[in-house]
C-alpha cells in the first residue's frame, strides 16, 4: 500500500489518518446537506400532520392534510433516507478504504438526477397535484410528471449504488483492500438490497407512468402492490442493513468495541441479503389474490431467517460493548459496564436509543403484525405507522443522526456547534419518539385507521358514527401521539440546527473535537507475529461466559418478545367475530 501515491487524489485526515478523496468529500457533503434539508422539511410536515390527527387540535383543512401527508411520507421514507445512505455509501467505499472515487462525474450525474427528481416529486405533492400518498396505488392516478420524477430519482439512486460497487471493486483490484471492514460490508449488503428494491420500484412505476400518459391501460392493482412493496419495504431493508453497520460503527467509535465474532456478524448480514426481501410480502397479508401458502412461506419461514439475523446483531453489538468495557477494566459484576459506558456521548446515546427503540418496539411489533393472522387486526390501522416510526424514525434516523455527529465535523472540517444541545439531542428525540409511537400504536391497536383526516366523521351527515364517542381511550391515545410528536420534532430540530450550524458557521479546523473517540476505532489490525497465535478456537473461549451481562439482557428481551407474541394470540382469540 503506497500512501505517497494515494495522497495525489486527496488529503490525509488528521484525526483518523484516512486518505480522503476530494471528489468523494464534496459529494458526501452534497448528499448529506440535501438529506438534512429533506429531514427538516419532513419534520415540519410531521408536526402539522400529528397536530391534525390529534383530534382536539385538528389543525389542517382536509385537502392540505392529505397533500402534506403524501409529501411527508415521500420526503422522509425515500428522500431523507436515500440521500443520507448514498452519502454513507460514498464514505464507506472511498474514504473508509482510503481509496479514490472511480468516476466522480458519474457520482455527480447520480446526485443531479436524485435532486431533480426528488424536487419535482415533492413540489407536485406539496401543491396538491399528486395527492396519491407515497404508495400511489393505481387506479388512483397521478400526473405523468410525478411518475417521471420518481423514476428519474430512482435511476439516479441506481447509478449511485452501482458506483459504490465499482469503487469497492476498484479499491480491491488496486490491492489496497483485502477483507472489507464490517461497516463497509454492511453497506455492501445495503447496496445489494437497494438494487433489488429500486428495480422492483421501477417495475411498478414504469407501467404506471405509461398508463398516466395514456399509452397502456391501468396496471393491475394487485400486481402493482406486489411490485411496489418490493420498493416500499425493500427500501426499509436497505435502512436496516445500513443502520446495523452504523450501530457497529458507533460502538467502535465511542467505546472501542470490536465485534466479538466477526464471522457471526457477517453471516447475520448475509442472512439479510438472502431472506429479508421476502418479508416484504407482509404488506399483502390482507390482500386478495395471493395464495395462503405463499403468504405463509414468505412472511413466516423466510422472514424469520432475517429476524434471526436481527436477533444476532441485537446480541453481538451490546456484547462487543460489554467486552470492550471489561477489557479496559471498567466493569465489575454483571452490569457494571453499563454504568461506565459514555451515556453523555451523543454517538453512544444515539446507538442506545436506536437499538432499544428499534429492537424492543419496532422489532417485536413488526414480527407480531407481520404474521398473517394478527395482521388482519393491524392492516392499515395506525399501528402500522407506529411500527415503522419505531423502526425507520426512532431506529434508522436516530442512528443516522448519531453517526452524523462524527462524519459532519470530519468531512466538513468544522468544529461541531452547540455541543450541549447535541448531548441532549438523542435523549429528547428518543423520548419524543417513544411517546409518539406509544400513542399512535395504542390508537391503531384500538382500531383507528391510518391516513384518515377525521375519525369523528363530523362531515358525513346523518350516517356519521364518531369513532371517538364511545370510549375515552382513543381520544387519549391521539393526544399522547400529538404530545410525543411535539417533543420528537423538537429533538429533530435540535439535530438539524446543530448540523446546519456546524456546516455553515462552525469554526474551520483540520482536527475537530469529536468528544471521546476510542483510539482503537481506526487503529489498523496489529500485524501478525510470525507463526501467530491468532486463531486458536480451543484457547479462545476457555472458561466462563465472556459477556454475561449482555446474555442476561438478551434473555430478558427474548422473554418480553415471547410474552408479547403469546399475548397477541390470546387477543386474536378475543375478537367478537370468527373469521377465516
Amino acid at each position, binding site marked *: 500500500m503506497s500512501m505517497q501515491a494515494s495522497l495525489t487524489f486527496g488529503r490525509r485526515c488528521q484525526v483518523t489518518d484516512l486518505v480522503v478523496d476530494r471528489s468523494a468529500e464534496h459529494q458526501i457533503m452534497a448528499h448529506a446537506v440535501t438529506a438534512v434539508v429533506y429531514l427538516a422539511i419532513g419534520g415540519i410536515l410531521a408536526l402539522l400532520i400529528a397536530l391534525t390527527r390529534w383530534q382536539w387540535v385538528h389543525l389542517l383543512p382536509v385537502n392540505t392534510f392529505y397533500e402534506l401527508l403524501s409529501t411527508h411520507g415521500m420526503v422522509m421514507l425515500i428522500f431523507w433516507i436515500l440521500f443520507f445512505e448514498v452519502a454513507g455509501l460514498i464514505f464507506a467505499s472511498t474514504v473508509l478504504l482510503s481509496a479514490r472515487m472511480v468516476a466522480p462525474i458519474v457520482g455527480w450525474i447520480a446526485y443531479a438526477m436524485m435532486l431533480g427528481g426528488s424536487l419535482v416529486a415533492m413540489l407536485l405533492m406539496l401543491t396538491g397535484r399528486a395527492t396519491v400518498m407515497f404508495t400511489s396505488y393505481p387506479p388512483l392516478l397521478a400526473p405523468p410528471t410525478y411518475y417521471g420524477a420518481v423514476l428519474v430519482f430512482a435511476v439516479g439512486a441506481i447509478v449511485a449504488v452501482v458506483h459504490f460497487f465499482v469503487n469497492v471493486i476498484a479499491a480491491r483490484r488496486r490491492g489496497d483492500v483485502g477483507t472489507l471492514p464490517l461497516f463497509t460490508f454492511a453497506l455492501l449488503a445495503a447496496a445489494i438490497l437497494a438494487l433489488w428494491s429500486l428495480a422492483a420500484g421501477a417495475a411498478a412505476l414504469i407501467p404506471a407512468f405509461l398508463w398516466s400518459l395514456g399509452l397502456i391501460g391501468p396496471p393491475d392493482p*394487485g400486481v402493482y402492490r406486489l411490485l411496489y412493496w418490493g420498493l416500499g419495504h425493500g427500501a426499509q431493508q436497505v435502512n436496516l442493513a445500513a443502520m446495523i453497520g452504523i450501530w457497529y460503527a458507533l460502538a467502535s467509535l465511542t467505546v472501542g468495541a470490536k465485534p466479538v465474532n466477526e464471522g457471526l456478524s457477517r453471516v447475520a448480514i448475509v442472512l439479510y441479503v438472502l431472506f429479508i426481501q421476502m418479508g416484504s410480502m407482509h404488506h399483502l397479508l390482507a390482500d386478495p389474490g395471493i395464495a395462503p401458502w405463499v403468504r405463509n412461506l414468505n412472511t413466516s419461514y423466510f422472514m424469520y431467517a432475517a429476524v434471526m439475523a436481527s436477533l444476532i446483531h441485537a446480541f453481538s453489538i451490546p456484547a462487543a460493548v460489554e467486552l470492550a468495557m471489561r477489557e479496559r477494566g471498567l466493569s465489575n459484576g454483571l452490569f457494571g459496564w453499563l454504568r461506565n459506558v459514555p451515556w453523555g456521548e451523543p454517538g453512544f446515546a444515539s446507538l442506545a436509543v436506536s437499538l432499544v427503540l428499534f429492537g424492543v418496539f419496532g422489532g417485536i411489533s413488526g414480527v407480531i403484525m407481520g404474521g398473517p*393472522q394478527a395482521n388482519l387486526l393491524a392492516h392499515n390501522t395506525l399501528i402500522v405507522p407506529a411500527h415503522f416510526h419505531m423502526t425507520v424514525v426512532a431506529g434508522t434516523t436516530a442512528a443516522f443522526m448519531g453517526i452524523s455527529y462524527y462524519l459532519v465535523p470530519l468531512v466538513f472540517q468544522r468544529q461541531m456547534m452547540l455541543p450541549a444541545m447535541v448531548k441532549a439531542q438523542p435523549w429528547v428525540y428518543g423520548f419524543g419518539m417513544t411517546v409518539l409511537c406509544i400513542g399512535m400504536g395504542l390508537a391503531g391497536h384500538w382500531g383507528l*385507521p391510518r391516513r384518515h383526516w377525521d375519525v369523528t366523521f363530523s362531515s358525513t351527515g346523518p350516517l356519521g358514527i364518531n369513532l371517538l364517542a364511545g370510549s375515552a381511550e382513543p381520544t387519549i391515545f391521539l393526544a399522547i401521539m400529538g404530545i410525543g410528536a411535539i417533543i420528537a420534532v423538537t429533538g429533530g430540530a435540535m439535530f438539524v440546527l446543530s448540523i446546519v450550524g456546524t456546516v455553515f458557521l462552525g469554526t474551520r479546523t483540520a482536527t475537530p473535537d469529536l468528544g471521546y473517540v476510542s483510539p482503537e476505532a481506526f487503529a489498523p489490525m496489529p500485524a501478525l507475529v510470525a507463526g501467530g497465535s491468532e486463531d486458536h478456537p480451543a484457547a479462545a473461549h476457555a472458561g466462563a*461466559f465472556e459477556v454475561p451481562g449482555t446474555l442476561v439482557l438478551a434473555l430478558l428481551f427474548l422473554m418480553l418478545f415471547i410474552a408479547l407474541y403469546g399475548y397477541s394470540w390470546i387477543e386474536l382469540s378475543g375478537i367478537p367475530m370468527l373469521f377465516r
Partner: protein
Amino acid sequence: MAVRVSSLVKPRGAWWQSLGRDERLWVGLVVIWGLAMFAMIVFIWPAIGARDNDIQAYRVDPATFHDKVEAFTAANKVGEIAGVPVVAAPAGGDAYLEAAAFSWRPFLQLQRGKQYRLLLSSRDLQHGFSLVFGPRSLNYQVLPGYITVVQITPERSGEFPVVCNEYCGLGHHLMLGRVIVKD
C-alpha cells in the same frame, strides 16, 4: 481469544473463529424461537384457532360485481338508513359489500352466531375494509377487479362502523358503512 478489530477497520489474516459459549447459547435460542414462530403460524394456529387468514379471491369485472350487489340488495332489503339500503344477508349465505369513492353499500344486517361468506370488492379505486369493534378492528384490502372473500361469524351483537382505511382520494374520510348484528 482471537485478535478482534474495530468495525471501521479491515480485518486481516484468519479472522474467522468458532462461536463462544455465549454465542452458541444465543444463536441456539434464536433458531428455536424462529422455528417456533414458524410452526405457530403455519401448523399450530390453523389447527386450533377459530380466527385465521384463508382469504379466497376471485377476479371480477367491477360492473358485474356492481350488478351482483344490486341484485343482492333488491332481494334482501329490510330497510333504509339515511338513504342507504339495509340488507339482511341470508343466514349461512353470501353478503355482498361494495366500496366506491366515497361510500360502502349496502349496510349489512347479520345474525349473531351465523356464518356468512363476505364478498368485498371495489367499483373504482383501492379501498380498505375496516370493521371497527372498538377496541380492535378487522381489516381487509379491497381492490377493483378482485373479490376478497372471507368467512365470518359475528359473536357480538350491535352496530359497527365500516371505515375505509386505504387512502382513496380527498373524500376518503367520508366513507362509512355499517354492519348491524342482531341477536
